[in-house]
């Protein structure tokens, strides 16, 4: 198999665009959330400043090797997810390293960062971190189940495991989107989406008001800055998967920006409307509402 070296700088370009978009969109969503509370909220460039400040701190202490690797795993989870799928449909520049079975890899990468975080937070030795990451893993694994079912349903529907082919099958008008051809799977997946976006009502494991911010309790300086960078990349990468699977993909960057923004806004809207679930409540929620939908979507297909 011959490898096209030109893809590497293109991949860097993708990551660069997504990081900047992620920072700005994250702050914008934060501002929208603040408006719901009648505040003005953070300046739109606040995340850049936070990251620069954290990279610029002069000291950082370590708790061991896994403590180093936690944020690295997390970042590689986000970047890996982004790089192994077609970000822009039909574009040679931004199809990145997608291949025939990339759907399976994407499913794995969605979970990869959380696992890395679990190891890192465990090594930090702080009880809040250990409790937080345990809760986080429980909830994310539970949210992953309906998503996985929805993905299988979509794979069955289009008879392929390649994201590019799934996007290709949805072209030619809005009515071809999975949203309309397989609405049950999309419903299950969107419930799972809420569970993994780290926003209310499903953010009890990372909320500052609960056990102080959970897994990243001990993380600071550049470790935290790496994780913040990932907080910009990972949601966008995850939403790009959703967009590709269920909402017809994107043919250009502006289309991608708009679709990703509205999908992100969906979780923000739910977040400002509903109070926080405890972990056992959210697990029950997924078991009662999302998993049956996932099973049903597979049966219908």
């Amino acid at each position: 198999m011959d490898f096209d070296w030109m893809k590497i700088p293109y991949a860097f370009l993708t990551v660069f665009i997504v990081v900047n978009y992620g920072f700005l969109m994250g702050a914008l969503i934060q501002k929208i959330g603040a408006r719901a509370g009648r505040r003005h909220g953070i300046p739109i460039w606040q995340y850049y400043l936070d990251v620069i400040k954290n990279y610029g701190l002069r000291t950082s202490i370590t708790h061991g090797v896994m403590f180093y690797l936690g944020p690295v795993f997390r970042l590689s989870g986000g970047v890996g997810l982004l790089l192994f799928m077609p970000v822009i449909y039909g574009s040679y520049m931004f199809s990145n390293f997608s291949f025939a079975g990339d759907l399976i890899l994407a499913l794995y990468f969605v979970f990869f960062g959380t696992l890395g975080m679990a190891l890192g937070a465990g090594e930090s030795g702080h009880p809040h971190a250990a409790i937080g990451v345990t809760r986080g893993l429980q909830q994310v694994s539970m949210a992953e189940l309906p998503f996985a079912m929805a993905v299988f349903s979509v794979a069955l529907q289009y008879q392929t495991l390649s994201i590019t082919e799934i996007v290709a099958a949805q072209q030619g008008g809005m009515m071809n989107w999975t949203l309309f051809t397989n609405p049950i799977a999309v419903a299950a997946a969107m419930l799972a989406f809420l569970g993994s976006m780290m926003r209310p009502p499903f953010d009890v494991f990372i909320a500052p008001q609960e056990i102080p911010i959970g897994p990243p309790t001990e993380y600071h300086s550049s470790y935290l800055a790496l994780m913040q960078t990932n907080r910009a990349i990972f949601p966008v990468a995850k939403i790009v998967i959703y967009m590709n699977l269920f909402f017809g993909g994107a043919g250009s960057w502006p289309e991608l920006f708009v679709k990703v923004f509205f999908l992100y806004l969906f979780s923000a809207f739910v977040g400002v409307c509903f109070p926080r679930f405890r972990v056992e409540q959210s697990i029950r929620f997924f078991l009662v509402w999302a998993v049956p939908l996932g099973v049903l979507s597979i049966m219908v297909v």
Partner: protein
Amino acid sequence: MTTKPELMKRMVKGPDGLEFEVDPLRDYYCEAPPTVMPGAYIQIVEDFFNWARSKSLWILGFGTGCGAIEMRPLMTPRFDAYRFGVAWRPTPRQANLFIISGYLSTKTLKRAIRAYEQMQNPKYVIGLGSCTINGGMYWDSYNTIKKLDEYLPVDLYIAGCMPRPEALLAGFEEMKKIIRTGKAEGANQYAENFAWYKANQKRVIHDWDMPDYNW
């Protein structure tokens, strides 16, 4: 100074029946004293970092006295300090601004010192209210410290009893100016005069049960 029994060196029997020696202060903590951390080698980079630091003040959410109640309204729609790049962090590891809000009893001083030392360089301290300047209305109390400056390096005082949230917002703006001029080097000052600060702290804290520096 006496060490508390749980911090003494002792033999411990593990769950697998193996006996081993534990020296808590050495095994669980790092006792190395802090060192002066120079800024970036190139001045313009340091200025850039200082600019970013001034725009992103993360406050440790730790209220020591009655002044803490003046910090809460800053999160509400009426004052909304987030507009100015001020945010609250629940853990000292991520915070870089420590507000000593009001009087500080000697018992709380110990916790304040631990929290301050766990913050990462550069870190800033604001003394809120008259109590941190000269004891305020607690000037003759046996149980509160009078001059915060003797125990932690303070960058800025906000006088009043109590200062209104507006005064705090003005104080943040003043703090940003100090940071931008590169004069907010409290952490390095603490490291330079470490012995003096420790002597002052140990003079009022009688049951000292922690290492000299909490990493």
